């Protein structure tokens, strides 16, 4: 229960919550922290902050203070790879990446959590690459004092699937590249795919174990795939031959190599003719020619998820559609743009 007292009567009492000061463009933060004992010298500053009355709190058994609520919420929201400090600032607790990796947000549970009255949590987008120490979410209870039951219900929801936010570490893989196309294989043009794909792999902390070149020939492509797997590659990237021309036989080569699961087509532009296949647990990513022209394509959306251990299927490729249209800006600002941010 909250009791209001006049500021002049508050000298000697302890503040029940942080008091925020905002100096536009200069500062926003706690001018006074919870527990601070109000003294005569504070009165003028508190008045300047618009405080002519303060609260005294007498918590009933079924009530909870915002700071204690925030700690319960943070503990339940935090999944693997997330850390947080029980040191609420203005009632809010930040959830921070405990390691480099890929942020995963359970958007459905997050939505359910935020439907509970008087609690909130805001996060970065799911599938954002984050560095250790980065803030990925924050939570708080809205009122200063609230009933304990909704806080506990929201916490139960958040914990129902191992937490709402987690950071998955990226596995270090040995990638094998298969660059297809008669024009490259026979030396008519210089290959530019291998350097692009190699950079994307190494940027995410993995290695390229081998690069094979193959003509537009099913058997040849299939053999190159099998050789990479025999050499211990646990991720394969294939370029070229993904389109609709009669010479585009990469898909068939992948099937002949023994792929038991093939998903052709992604709801992303650039990258509609992207392919994901699996030979056992080894993923094969077929990169269409757009990967040469555009700095960022569907591969940049899918590759981190594959490295984080996610199995990509039809559903995952279809769900990329919302937010999957690149604006093709003259100056690309990815990942700080909406591209690929609409999926759950």
């Amino acid at each position, binding site marked *: 229960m909250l009791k209001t007292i006049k500021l002049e009567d508050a000298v000697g009492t302890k503040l029940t919550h942080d008091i925020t000061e905002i100096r536009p463009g200069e500062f926003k933060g706690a001018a006074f922290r919870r527990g601070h004992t109000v003294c005569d010298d504070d009165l003028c500053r508190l008045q300047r902050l618009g405080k002519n009355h303060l609260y005294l709190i007498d918590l009933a058994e079924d009530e909870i203070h915002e700071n204690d609520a925030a700690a319960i919420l943070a503990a339940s929201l935090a999944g693997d790879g997330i850390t947080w400090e029980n040191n609420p600032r203005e009632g809010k607790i930040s959830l921070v990446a405990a390691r480099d990796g890929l942020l995963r947000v359970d958007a459905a549970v997050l939505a*359910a959590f935020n439907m509970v009255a008087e609690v909130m949590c805001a996060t970065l987008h799911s599938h954002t690459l984050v560095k250790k120490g980065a803030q990925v979410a924050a939570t708080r209870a809205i009122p200063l004092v609230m009933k304990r039951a909704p806080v506990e219900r929201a916490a*139960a*929801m958040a914990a*129902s*699937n191992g937490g709402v936010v987690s950071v998955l570490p990226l596995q270090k893989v040995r990638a094998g590249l298969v660059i297809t196309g008669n024009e490259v294989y026979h030396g008519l043009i210089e290959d530019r795919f291998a350097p692009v794909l190699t950079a994307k792999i190494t940027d995410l902390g993995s290695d390229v174990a081998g690069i094979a070149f193959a003509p537009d020939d099913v058997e040849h492509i299939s053999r190159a795939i099998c050789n990479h797997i025999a050499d211990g590659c646990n991720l394969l990237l294939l370029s070229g031959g993904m389109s609709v021309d009669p010479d585009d036989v990469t898909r068939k080569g992948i099937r002949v190599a023994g792929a038991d699961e093939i998903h052709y087509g992604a709801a992303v532009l650039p990258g509609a003719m992207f392919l994901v296949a699996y030979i056992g647990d080894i993923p094969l990513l077929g990169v269409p020619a757009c990967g040469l022209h555009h700095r960022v394509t569907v591969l940049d959306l899918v590759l981190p998820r594959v490295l984080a251990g996610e199995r990509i299927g039809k559903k995952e490729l279809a769900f990329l559609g919302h937010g999957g249209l690149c604006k093709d800006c003259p100056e690309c600002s990815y990942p700080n743009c909406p591209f690929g941010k609409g999926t*759950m």
Partner: protein
Amino acid sequence: MQDFESLLKSSAAAHGHLCPGQVVGVRMAMLGCRLIGLDDPSSHEQIKKLIVYVEMDRCTADAVSHVTGVKLGRRSLKFVDYGIMAATFLNLETNRAYRVVSTEEARDLAAMFAPEIAGKHAQQLRAYQRMPDSVLFRVQEVDVNLAELDLPGPTRRKVACVRCGQVVRDGREVIRSGRVLCKPCSGECYYREAREVSWPDMNRTPACKSKIAGVKTTNHDTKILSENRRRDGLLNEYHKEISPCLKP
């Protein structure tokens, strides 16, 4: 108690179709029973310990009744017409009761929990199976004062209406100016202008419609049976005659 899938299947069969309300009802009943400590409510040992108040006459009510085994005629199922998707589960042994309320926000969240499914009905059907209890329900611990006259068991009181003579059971009579009335005579009634009528085939006796195994048919039974058949024939003839006239 059986597992969720089995209960949903049998509940849908008993109700007549599978629908989101069945999913909610089965889960509501499973949660309610768990909260009051009954793991097999329709078993012989537990069936007399449970009272369930359902606050809606919708699909969910049938599922709650099916899973728990509570029945109107056993007085273990109480219908309170609130129009709220909620049910209260009372353990008569411990006197603990929990009211389980289906959340309205679960409807809004269905698309989030089953995004790959198109169509509201199919989406809710799947989403309500995926949501944790904390999303699908709110729960309140409540005190329920169950009057002795509402308990299962034998009829505890019978009185006769002073106006029409109708016997009224279990304290459902109304006292007006010190006079005992049945509800229809008191005016608290869902129908009006009751008129006593006679009807065709007034002496039909179902026991004689067919021979009951092990029971010898008497001459009297046979006579009634043949009379029933004769009247059925007459009624059929009658319907044949008037049906064409009724067609537009």
